[in-house]
């Protein structure tokens, strides 16, 4: 599943931000449900089936927990369902809990997809022009971390083979990790000075440094960008004119069904299932071209 991952970083970043913004900040049941659905479909398309099922085992209990906890201590609303320790458990609070759960799970799913698609190099590319020096720092840190991890494993084994803190008790383990971390600081800073020599040897530090990347902005990226902007504009305008306002307290509001409101739902619905559609289209095209061979 590569269709969305191959898009230009700017397009995918804009896409994720817009979906997340709407999902987090416009608490309208239809939009939130659409975001949850889109996120779930996208994550399912990105993963193998087994992993997706395992995720369900994680998100479902979380969903129930968030939904149930809210009415237990929020007693707003006018429709009591029953009383617990003389406190009313209201329908409104329960529904608000459900909407919170939809939002939380939706955000988590979209963040999961984001983490899958927006790898560190895309992030660096996007911010390389805005904060060039820091993005170089980030790139170096990203380069160091796996090296440090490997070296720390070596140090830990070397120490173990000398019988130092080789025990299995918690204190031995914590002590061992701390010794390793301390040893790593010396080692890494010594090496960092060699790295700085290598940077200077290649002329780092002169004015007018440029930022190179392998990403190209293609026509398809432009098309997707335009579609995203249009689809995002509709719910934002909807929010501006109050179509997406929705109240839970004191009484649960009514979901609008005016043509304008339908348009808002349709636009955001399309936006949130867009990556899933792209992935499915890619899969079909691929199967078709394979069958032709």
């Amino acid at each position: 599943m590569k269709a969305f991952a191959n898009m230009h970083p700017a397009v995918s970043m804009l896409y994720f931000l817009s979906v997340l913004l709407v999902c987090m900040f416009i608490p309208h049941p239809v939009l939130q449900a659409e975001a949850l659905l889109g996120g779930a479909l996208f994550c399912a398309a990105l993963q193998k089936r087994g992993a997706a099922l395992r995720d369900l085992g994680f998100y479902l209990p979380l969903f129930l927990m968030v939904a149930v906890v809210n009415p237990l201590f929020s007693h707003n609303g006018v429709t009591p369902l029953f009383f617990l320790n003389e406190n009313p458990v209201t329908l409104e609070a329960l529904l608000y809990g459900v909407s919170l759960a939809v939002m939380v799970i939706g955000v988590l799913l979209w963040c999961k997809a984001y983490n899958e698609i927006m790898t560190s190099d895309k992030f660096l590319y996007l911010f390389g022009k805005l904060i060039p020096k820091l993005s170089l720092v980030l790139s170096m840190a990203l380069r160091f971390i796996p090296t440090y991890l490997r070296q720390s494993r070596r140090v830990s084994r070397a120490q173990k083979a000398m019988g130092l803190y080789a025990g299995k008790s918690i204190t031995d383990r914590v002590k061992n990790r701390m010794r390793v971390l301390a040893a790593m600081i010396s080692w890494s800073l010594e090496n960092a000075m060699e790295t700085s020599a290598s940077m200077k040897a290649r002329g780092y530090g002169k004015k007018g440094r440029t930022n190179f990347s392998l990403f190209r902005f293609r026509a398809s990226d432009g098309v997707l960008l335009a579609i995203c902007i249009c689809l995002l504009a509709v719910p934002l305008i909807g929010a501006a004119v109050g179509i997406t306002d929705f109240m839970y307290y004191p009484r649960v509001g009514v979901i609008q069904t005016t043509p304008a409101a339908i348009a808002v739902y349709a636009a955001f619905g399309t936006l949130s299932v867009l990556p899933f559609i792209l992935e499915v289209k890619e899969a079909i095209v691929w199967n078709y071209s394979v069958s032709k061979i």
Partner: protein
Amino acid sequence: MELFRVENLSFRYPKAERDALQEINLSVQNGEFIVLCGASGCGKTTLLRLLKKELAPVGEKTGRILYAGAPQEALTNAGEIGFVQQNPESQIVTDKVWHELAFGLENMGLPTETIRRRVGEMASFFGMQGWFRQKTDALSGGQKQLLNLASVMVMQPKLLILDEPTGQLDPIAAADFIATLQKINRELGLTILLAEHRLEEVFPIADRVLVLENGRILLDDEPRKIGLRLSKLHCDHPIMLHALPGAVRIWQGLHIDDTCPLTVREGREFLERHFENRAETLPEPEVPRIGETAVELKNVWFRYEKDAPDVLRGVSAKVYRGEIFCMLGGNGVGKTTALNVLAGLDKPYRGKVLVGGKPIKDYKGGTLYRRGLALLPQNPETVFVKDTVRADLAEILEVMEIPRSEHAAQIEKIAEKLGIVHLLDRHPFDISGGEQQKSALAKVLLSEPKILLLDEPTKGIDAFAKSNLREILRKLKRDGMTIVLVTHDVEFAAETADRCAFVFDGEILSADPPQKFFAENSFYTTAANRMARGLWKNAVTCEQVIEGCRTTGGQL
């Protein structure tokens, strides 16, 4: 055309007692391939760094360095002189291969399209297409060093300076790297100044060799004349004895009036021209008496993860008490894993490991590592966690429950034995690779092991430190220690081991005394053996070849 001219250059580090470089005079012509050699601490690195003004060390400098006829300060383009250091790991700046290649060009402020072109060109010249988009961290050591070279080459330098670039590489990767340098020199006409301590491959391809000693240029001549002039200066010069290619050493040891051979082929022709074999084989020393088994692997199977392929497939081996046992083999055949299994770091999922006749599992809570078994890891710096060598050594004594009052004496004793007394109060990261290794060995030995395991002990140390290590290992053996080592270094194994074993595809294939072992190999053997095997199949070291020529070889 003259690229570099160094006139009367002397240099002294701040607070140092003597000059690191004295009265250096040197001229580098365009297109030359120059090799710089000398023991560690002779001033090689200082000289090379002074030539690259961005890396010039701080200190007192007299004399002049001219680049293309003008003082070197006038050179503004850092890309014109490329510099590659020893450690492949620490020179890489960014996290992706393509970005690393582009790094220097970004610094020069070139536009994206130009960078794309140049990076693409270099990647295809170096054959990097397969790993162009990979993370730099996922590369092997050899690939990393090649990447360092390529990301310097992409800036289109006029001169390439390399400071022991193959020091951390295994022999195959090192040979690849040297071959790439030769290609760059031949095909692109690029001037190369290379400091090396492994001279076997670079000697034959160099135009000139500079020998540095105590901060002075001892010799500056073409490779064929270096051997002769060196032996005239003093015949037991450490470089002569240990570092020069086998062919030169044999030629020098025989004192025959003929041109000096440089490669294995020339060496063989030289030997065949002057000697005939009157005895099929050289006499072999008595096979050491087979004693008690110190450690044993019994049908050991190991893999790192459940779904990963097997790394060890039924390895069986016995190591006898008091011998030096050497495991040889290429990359990724399972040598180091076998050693780690012996050390109790990796647990086999099938088979048995016996240490002193007792299953390794039965040693509980670190008892294995007290007066039992010790491992010197491949990277000696992983052994140190304190801020002086002394503190690091004391830490082990603490674990060994030796009373505080005896610490000083014990540390003094081991330091003298290994010759590191002067290093005790230094920081472990302030000393050279060879010194680091000896200090790490001292720390490991303080646990009074009966069995010592060493992983690639010759990596990154120069010829002198290598022969020093050999002496130490022999001394330890005389004291009754069993030593198991894993190495790529066939020359070291031939000169050190009592028995050598060949590891391939997760198995130990054979274990024999080195003369027998190498006599049966035709490719995987020492340079001396490859030269002399037509005369004596079992002449393995240069000394044996020379000895053979003197005693049983009839001179023609």
